């Protein structure tokens, strides 16, 4: 078994004083693909933002370990440089900052080295081709005026360029049409295959998972991890929904009815 990449230990998280996550334990090893499922409002995205160091997410107790190091208090940019990546559910728009200037600055800060524009542009073009993104997008302002699907593709474009150790995809497949889902899946597969990158896929649908091998599935209900399983659990949930998990959680007293 390969080494632990990301580990949470009894993580309790609150947002604006409201307790959201309860004693979350999770371990993701190098190159593994995990899926986090659960009904709306279960706290799945909260976990994603907490792992990335979102400013509104307060860790009340517990730890986050990345390759054995405690990153619970690290700022987001440090976590990113340490190999974490979060694909936002709603990527932010930055008027006046072109996509290519943003990507190049980010790459330079991640490596601490200057990147020649021609070298950068070669990489960028190759990654854009995977996602069928028109090269003209590179000079447009970051996410400004992009459709929902385009924004998600830009997230995956960053995934391909930054080559993180662990990518958290927060509802990356939601709001996408069939073609866009296929392209996003292609991008994610390229990341898995070329960079041996690990994934934590937060979703409540299964479309993005169809072409991916899943190592482990987690089910979250009202901020509690209530079940873990292998890849087949995705199909099972797909068929039967979350009801049995919610009932079980209530029965076991983990969740209020």
């Amino acid at each position: 078994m390969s080494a632990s990449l990301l580990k949470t230990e009894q993580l309790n998280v609150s947002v604006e004083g409201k307790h959201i996550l309860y004693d979350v334990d999770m371990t993701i090893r190098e190159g593994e693909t995990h899926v986090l499922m659960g009904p709306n409002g279960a706290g799945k995205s909260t976990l994603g933002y907490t792992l990335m160091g979102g400013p509104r997410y307060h860790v009340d107790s517990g730890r986050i370990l990345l390759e054995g190091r405690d990153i619970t208090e690290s700022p987001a940019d440090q976590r990113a440089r340490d190999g974490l990546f979060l694909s936002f559910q709603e990527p932010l728009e930055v008027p006046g900052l072109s996509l290519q200037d943003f990507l190049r600055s980010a790459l330079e800060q991640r490596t601490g080295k200057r990147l020649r524009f021609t070298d950068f542009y070669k990489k960028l073009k190759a990654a854009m081709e995977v996602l069928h993104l028109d090269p003209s997008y590179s000079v447009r302002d970051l996410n400004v005026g992009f459709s929902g699907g385009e924004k998600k593709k830009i997230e995956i474009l960053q995934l391909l360029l930054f080559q993180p150790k662990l990518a958290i995809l927060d509802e990356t497949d939601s709001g996408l049409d069939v073609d866009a889902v296929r392209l996003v899946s292609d991008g994610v597969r390229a990341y898995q295959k070329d960079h041996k990158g690990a994934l934590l896929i937060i979703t409540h649908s299964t479309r993005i998972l169809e072409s991916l091998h899943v190592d482990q599935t987690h089910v979250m209900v009202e901020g509690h991890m209530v079940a873990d399983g292998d890849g087949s659990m995705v199909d099972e949930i797909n068929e039967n929904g979350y009801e049995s998990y919610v009932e079980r959680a209530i029965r076991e007293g983990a969740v209020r009815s």
Partner: protein
Amino acid sequence: MREKSQVEEVGRSLYDFRKEEKDAYRVGAGLTPAIVEQISREKKDPPWMTLFRLQSLQIYDSMSMPDWGPSIEGLDMDHIVTYVRPNTKMSAKWSEVPEDIKDTFERLGIPQAERKSLAGVGAQYDSELVYHNLQEEVAAQGVIYTDLESAMHGPYAKMIQSHFMKLVPPSDHKFAALHGAVWSGGSFVYVPPHVSVTIPLQSYFRLNAPGAGQFEHTLIIVDEGADLHFIEGCSAPKYNVANLHAGCVELFVGKNAHLRYSTIENWSKNMYNLNTKRALVEEGGTMEWVSGSFGSHVSYLYPMTILKGRKARMEFTGITFAGKGQDLDTGAKVVHSAPETSSYINTKSISKDGGASTFRSSLVIQEGAEHSKAAVSCQSLMLDDISRSDTIPAMDIRTGDADVGHEARIGRISDDAVFYLMSRGISEEDARAMIVSGFADNVSKELPLEYAVEMNNLIRLEMKGSIG
């Protein structure tokens, strides 16, 4: 708690340096008719100009200080040396410019600009034009670009007399009167009919002596169907004595002519910048202003455009960045006095560390200016809770069919956007700087590349240490 980087003070060392004074000549500190006459003699003014200066001084004495806008109580005119002449004569060759002055210019990047084959560089050191160069091909087109003093004695003497301070009369306000009395240095540009100057003309102004005011006068006449881009770049070293800048810019845009006037002002943080700029646009002419205000302690700056002829138009793009201890009152004015004229004022302002930025605009559409169009848009970005941003738009519309739009927005940097950029490995300081630069992007896009780079550098410099 999370560790955050903190930088004590903005590193302005690149811009804050000064040379030991070696002034050949200096007038007394106060302002009297004798001093004005002395200046006039030294400048070898024609008689009309001596008279003009003395009349201006009378007007200055009779007018009161402005009772609106940011406080200028820190100004003590009795202790401002109004005129300092550096130890050098007009020079057309770089090799003849004294070393210490050259050093200052080099740090300002003038030779680089020169190498980039810009049309002409007139650089002002203290109150005198010391270095002047106009590319031969531009001169061959009949374009005049020279210092105003010598032009008053040349073939354009009459033209100067009939235009000088006609747009900004000394009676306009107290500091216009002061300017009329003690003005010194500056540029004169004349572009003959139907001549297109394809490369921008540039001029650098710089204050160096403690307590010295700078009163340069820029007079530009773009004749019928001609085209010019003029760039004025300013920066000044930092001093503890209050400094005053009361320059004056008068722009005449002829029939179907086009003038773009770009400025980046980066005065040191003790400067009182009370500058007056005005343009008169004839039929079918176009005036474009691009204005970046970064430095100074206090600024009053509202470039004004008078759309005199039918279908005259103007566009103003401006940005103001007010940091700690700065009170920058900037904006634009426009008067539509002919039919089918149009104007567009688009400004951005940024305030941080307790800085105050006020946008003031005045839009007048006079009777008879039918079918005129005007739009005013201002956006403000406040980087913290202790800074101020105000918007004071005034409109006076005297026609029934004017098409007028106004938009004002005040915002903050979104924490989510900062987190988004940080989650990509960008430091918090850089993330904020990128968002602010993006906010200013529509202004930098209007500037020639090297100025856009300088403006972005200034923004980065100003953003340093903004994370507490």
